[in-house]
């Protein structure tokens, strides 16, 4: 299969996908009720957003339409959340955010009955079930494929920002992993994860894709589990490193921060992406997963070390004008407050776990938090 043509889209348009957890209200374990919830959704014709199954039965994915500003995006996310929460009440299930389920064992996951999911399960074995993790994907519209690749590589330096700001998965199998985002460790186990090849033009990218399909390793773009992936049929790049936040409000704020950052990169063009940018990519990514905003960020050019907190705060100053242009200054101010005060979703999870004393109680708290604005 050849690479599709890259469809042009409005620059900096926004779309968000969130993978959500479906919980049993009895013990707050993941419950295989995706098909029950989808049946309920199917009976409500004019429901907001798009609601589809994910790889295992305890997950569901929601996605928004295309938005130009944070304002309408967060409104739609709120509507989808309210709609699904109503479904949850009628079906006696709960929904919540967070990147991992705190005590789910991978062996208990059930693959959703759909051809592609069974294929993935056959190829990757337990990795597929371990992929019962919950992420936020943000799409950014790009006018041309070359612009998309420019943005994709320029953003690589900022990937740790998004990981640190969204990290909401400290617990796996009932234990504190010490990570802000343990979810990404599951993604990293896939052989085709990591980052896209350093090519600057869509033509070169097409050659790379052709070579990969010839090896038989990949069939479509979907087989790449990269942190940032071009999505030619939408005309976007898709940033896939964020954990699903604990509230839709924070999910919309993250999208706004990314949008302002992209505007800064596209308009001011402060970076010319080069291969060497990726020297420290995995190190920086690990630091963000492990320590959140306390992690170290290494500059690949100067070799300078600084904390992610410092780097995010400095970036917020640099992109301020772009945020104002996009009506994203209020969400960026909220992100600034979070970073300054050192509050994150991962810390919130740890605090609730300590206060309530058990992983099921933490999941119940997460479900209550999800219903809030």
């Amino acid at each position, binding site marked *: 299969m050849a690479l599709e043509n890259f469809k042009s889209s409005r620059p900096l348009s926004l779309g968000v996908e969130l993978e959500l957890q479906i919980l049993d209200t009895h013990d707050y374990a993941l419950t295989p009720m995706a098909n029950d919830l989808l049946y309920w959704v199917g009976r409500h014709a004019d429901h907001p957003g798009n609601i589809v199954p994910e790889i295992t039965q305890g997950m569901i994915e929601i996605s928004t339409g295309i938005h130009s500003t944070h304002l309408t995006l967060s409104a739609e996310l709120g509507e989808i959340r309210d709609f699904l929460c109503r479904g949850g009440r*009628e079906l006696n299930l709960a929904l919540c955010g967070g990147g991992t389920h705190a005590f789910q064992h991978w062996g208990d996951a059930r693959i959703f009955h759909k051809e592609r999911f069974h294929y993935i399960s056959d190829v990757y074995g337990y990795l597929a079930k371990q992929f019962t993790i919950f992420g936020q994907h943000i799409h950014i519209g790009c006018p041309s494929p070359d612009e998309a690749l420019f943005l994709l590589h320029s953003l690589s330096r900022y990937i740790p920002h998004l990981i640190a700001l969204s990290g909401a998965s400290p617990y796996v199998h009932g234990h504190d992993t010490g990570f802000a985002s343990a979810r990404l460790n599951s993604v990293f186990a896939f052989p085709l994860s990591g980052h896209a090849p350093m090519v600057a033009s869509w033509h070169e990218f097409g050659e790379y894709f052709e070579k990969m399909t010839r090896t038989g390793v990949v069939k479509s773009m979907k087989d790449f589990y990269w942190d940032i992936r071009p999505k030619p049929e939408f005309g976007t790049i898709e940033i896939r490193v964020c954990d699903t936040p604990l509230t839709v409000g924070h999910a919309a704020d993250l999208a706004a921060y990314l949008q302002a950052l992209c505007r800064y990169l596209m308009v001011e063009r402060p970076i010319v992406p080069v291969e060497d940018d990726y020297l420290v990519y995995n190190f920086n990514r690990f630091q963000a997963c492990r320590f959140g905003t306390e992690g170290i960020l290494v500059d690949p050019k100067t070799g300078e070390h600084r904390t992610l907190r410092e780097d995010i705060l400095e970036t917020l100053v640099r992109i301020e004008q772009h945020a104002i242009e996009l009506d994203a200054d209020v969400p960026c101010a909220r992100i600034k407050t979070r970073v300054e005060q050192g509050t994150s979703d991962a810390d919130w999870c740890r605090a609730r776990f300590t206060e309530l004393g058990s992983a099921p109680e933490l999941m119940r708290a997460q479900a209550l938090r999800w219903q809030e604005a």
Partner: protein
Amino acid sequence: MNALSSLPFEIDAFARVALLLIVAIASAEACERWLRLPRLIGYVLAGLLLGPAVLAWVPPSITGDLRPLMLLGLGLLLFELGSRVDLRWLRHNPLLIVSSLVESGLTFGAIYLFLGWFDLATVTRMAVAAIAVSTSPAVVMRIVAENNARGQMTERLMLMTALNSLYAILLLKISVGMAHLDRNAGLLQAIAHPAYIAFGSFLLAAALAYGMHLARFSHLKRESERFTLVIAVVLLGTTLADRLGLSVPMALLCGGMILRSLSQRLHLFPEHFGAAGALLVIVLFTLTGVALDPRHVVAGGLMSIGLLLIRGLAKYCGAFVSAGYGGLAPSKAAWLGVALLPMSSLAVLQAHEVAGLYADFGDEILAIVLGAVLIMELVGPVATQLALRRSGEAMPTPVEREV
């Protein structure tokens, strides 16, 4: 003569229980491995085989000796079922109440009419119809646990089982009240007695649940200690309900439900409250098997079989009410009707309760109900398991969590 009595040493009570348990486990294993039947069937078959009906290696008196254990096992399952039912769900999805009322009403009405073909007293018809309304809480809880089932149908199965068991208990008390009326007792007594039982059982349940809640029960870290407390509460509930002339099953079911709705915090119990609870459940089903007597099918005859067919049909129709707008896929609603079939210890308990009160029409009730229970004891668990598996809610490879 009895094969065991020719042995050179005396087989005492302990040895008989040991034998019963070993055969129960072996036959459960055989059922699951080779016949792909629920393990529960194995327990019942072991009891039936060793009991007076077939080999007579275990004397019928064993059911009397071990009755406290049996009642405790049933009590635990009732309490467990109650604690799985969230009454707040009914508020958000009122069609569930409608569905449950239709299912139970249809069962009661259809069976009452059906029994009109036979020469039976009105009170007998009412009592049998009332008993048939309930789905066996014990069988449902056990089969759900065995299959590690989760999903919308499983949730509704537990909810509707809890509700129809409550209706069955109430309807039976009302039938008994009617019997009082028949015997020219005062109208007041006929109404007051069921009302006393309903409100009394509810108040007792509330007191027990509130007590557990106040004792900050869920904060106990050790599972073994929480289990011990649950046993104590079930024992207390059983004995108090009994002494006060209330309904034991109602008190325990309501106790679990009230505990669930009292507190926002989780009251997490392991399945059947852990390994010790599971032992009681095995004892319960094995002894149920011992008490089965194939002659009941003969005595109950056509009436028992007809009752089961009509009951099945009524439950099947009732389950469909919550399909569609109620949020249940029609394919799952069809299986829900099948899953609601089991009839077991609660029905036996109720039949004996009425029979004990009224010797004259008690025998008829016993014959019909016990005949039906005998068949359902073997068909019911299979039906529920089939429904859970076909609806895709059973975990494909069950994980043993009891140990």
